[in-house]
């Protein structure tokens, strides 16, 4: 394998590992703020119990996000030196703004949010929680701006082969940014909603009937049920936007080879790039035309349009884009079904008397948001190939000249560490759930709501 392929795999592995944790912290920060505000408003200690449990998950995820993020900030230099040399004038300021307006905000107030409650006034603590949540959202904004610009670049000119910014407004508000940002924020919300629902269901299956667990289950299910329709809608708009700017990607997502009207919606198939056709296709007639053009006679682009006269293939590899898109949408549909069924059962049985079957289902879906998010990013990113910045810089022109063996060696190192950490991370979350199930009910503790008060000691560092 050559340096290019290995560097791509390495970058893909690193960013995939990184994105897992921000996906959780972005929305969990807001959920924690919600718990905290509910507690201030009602004084019911179940809200604070829920806060105390989930703040631990938050702290753990945040640490994982930070250290994998530090890796990311070196990856541009070690793997894609060409990226910064060619588009650094655009990418640089965006990354710099991310560090300055978001990372420091999060990092500094995180300390106060996690360990400062007994040292500052409650409102300062609530403010710190808000600033952390706000900071993670700002991070998302800036990085998504950069990533969207790489898909739909505008507001620049090329002088001597180097990209120079002409309009920052056009760069920041590039055509795909709003869709991508909204879709990512919702993805984070869904991931957290299903994580909270899943872990609460697990605790209930283990026999925990605490008020905080029931409340968390309710919050998880209702959040999931309200966000998923929005996500499907946002995904649809996102797809239409991509159709306009990256038709080759949409053709690969749909598994459509020939441009034309009345294109079916392929539910399943095995795309064969050699024969340039789908095998074992199961499809809904006119479906793709209806979704993408809103009429059965709508013309949908096909992959064969993206092959040059002399046979050079100018579209991304079809199979990975095609499959990962189906994984994402499939999980989206499963989320829709489960969360709406969950809402119905909440009304019918109440959180405390949920039958075990849906509880098992929620457990099984705990980390489904992760898989959908990764699948979504693979669709997006692999679908942009062979470009790194659409139409401006191709991936192979950005790669470094580090020897392949070195890339391979470090890649293996990263993979081993990541595998261990993922196992440890999921293990610790279940361990925390088990401990909370067995341990003293939090509600026997008092929490200061306004003004200072003393709190029973917890384990150090807990």
């Amino acid at each position, binding site marked *: 394998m050559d340096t290019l392929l290995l560097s791509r795999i390495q970058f893909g592995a690193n960013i995939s590992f990184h994105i897992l944790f921000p996906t959780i912290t972005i929305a969990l920060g807001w959920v924690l703020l919600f718990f905290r505000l509910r507690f201030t408003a009602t004084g019911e200690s179940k809200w604070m119990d829920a806060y105390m449990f989930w703040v631990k998950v938050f*702290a753990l995820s*945040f*640490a*994982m996000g*930070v*250290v*994998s993020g*530090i*890796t990311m*900030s*070196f990856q*541009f*230099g*070690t793997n894609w*030196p060409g990226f*910064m*040399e060619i588009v*650094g*004038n*655009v990418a*640089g*300021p965006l*990354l*710099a703004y991310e*560090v*300055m*307006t978001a*990372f*420091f905000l*999060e*990092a*500094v*107030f*995180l*300390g106060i949010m*996690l*360990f*400062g409650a007994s*040292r*500052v006034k409650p409102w300062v603590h609530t403010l710190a929680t808000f600033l952390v949540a706000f900071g993670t959202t700002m991070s998302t904004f800036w990085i998504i701006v950069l990533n969207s610009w790489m898909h739909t670049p505008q507001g620049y000119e090329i002088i001597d082969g180097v990209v*120079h*910014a002409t309009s920052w407004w056009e760069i920041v508000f590039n055509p795909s940014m709003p869709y991508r940002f909204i879709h990512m924020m919702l993805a984070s919300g869904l991931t957290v909603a299903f994580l909270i629902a899943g872990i609460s269901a697990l605790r209930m299956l283990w026999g925990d009937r605490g008020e905080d667990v029931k409340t968390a289950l309710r919050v998880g299910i209702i959040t999931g049920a309200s966000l998923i329709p929005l996500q499907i809608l946002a995904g649809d708009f996102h797809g239409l936007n991509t159709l306009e700017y990256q038709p080759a990607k949409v053709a690969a997502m749909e598994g459509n080879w020939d441009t034309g009207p009345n294109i079916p919606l392929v539910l399943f198939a095995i795309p064969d790039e050699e024969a340039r056709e789908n095998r074992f296709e199961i499809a809904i007639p006119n479906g793709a035309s209806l979704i993408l053009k809103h009429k059965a006679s709508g013309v949908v682009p096909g992959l064969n349009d993206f092959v040059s006269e002399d046979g050079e293939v100018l579209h991304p590899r079809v199979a990975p884009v095609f499959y990962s898109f189906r994984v994402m949408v499939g999980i989206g549909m499963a989320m829709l079904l489960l969360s709406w069924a969950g809402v119905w059962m909440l009304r019918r049985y109440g959180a405390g008397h949920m039958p075990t079957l849906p509880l098992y289902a929620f457990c099984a879906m705990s980390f489904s948001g992760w898989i959908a998010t990764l699948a979504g990013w693979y669709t997006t990113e692999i679908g942009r190939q062979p470009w790194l910045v659409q139409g401006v810089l191709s991936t192979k022109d950005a790669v*470094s*000249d*580090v020897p392949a063996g*070195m890339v391979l060696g*470090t890649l293996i*190192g*990263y993979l081993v560490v990541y595998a261990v950490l993922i196992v*440890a991370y999921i*293990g*610790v979350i279940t*361990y*925390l759930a088990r401990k909370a199930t067995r341990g003293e009910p939090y509600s026997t503790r008092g*929490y200061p709501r306004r003004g200072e008060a003393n*709190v029973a000691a*917890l384990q*150090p*560092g*807990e």
Partner: protein
Amino acid sequence: MDYFGDPAVWLPWTFAALMGLSILIYVVLDGFDLGVGLLMPLAEEDQKDRLVASIGPFWDANETWLVLAVGLLLVAFPPAHGVILTALYLPVFVMLIGLILRGVSFEMRAKAPIAQKRMWNGAFFAGSLMASLSQGFMLGMYIMGLTWTLPHVGFALLTAVFLTVGYSFIGAAWLIWKTEGALQERAIGWAKGGIWGLVAGIAAISLATPFVSVRIFDKWFSWPEMLYLSPLPILSAALVGFLWWKLSRLPFRDDQWAWTPFAAATGLFTLAYGGMAYSFYPYVVPEKITIYEAASAPESLFIILLGTLFVLPAILGYTVLSYYIFRGKATALRYD
């Protein structure tokens, strides 16, 4: 040269200064928390939680200075960023793995089942060690001009050890400030054991730097520059003397002066760093690329600078606020 007229001149200079400043802040701040990690195995089992608690609220923000420093290198001097990071590919990898292990063990050691705690303590130490050694190694390679020859690697291995001992020293100085009782007395002992690393490190770098390049040699040993530079070694020697004297007397009653070793250590790091910055200016890749050649387009730098002028004071402000909120001796870390 008209310094403030031509943005292609003063912008790169400003960014070099900003980047230098964030590296310095990083070295001092993450230096002390890496140092505390290095000292972990030396502490008693029941003191380890206190060690971690003394850096708990700070470490994340401390590491963000590294992100800012790399970010500024990336943003302001893109070609140099590529050259430096590809030349240092392996040590960067070791450092990243180290930082990952460390940051994760921070949380894991407190949350994983008790039976795993020893393991995560071990990972915390190992991560701190990997990060410190690789940073020292990179420092050495950078001074030697980023070329992988045997003598250069040998020198880099030496600076790796010195920087690691230096970090443990500043870590111990931090602990003297933030802890009390038996732990503080231990920290004083560690600081006494570690000060030589700092002194040897500064000496090795000061001796080696002028001999790597004629340009730097001339910069140091010509009149009247020598006169302007003379405060550097004199102040450094004074600070070392002060540290030695204080350490042999601590702890004082009522814990007076417990902050002075940390302040003096910060001073030493700053002086050594200032000397290095002076030697390498105007190069960002030693002897190969100057900051003016590597700089991004002025309009891009300008838009970052605008933001920096607003944001940097705010960052400094709330960093100070956080150190103020967590002032005094370290207490057990609790989420309430």
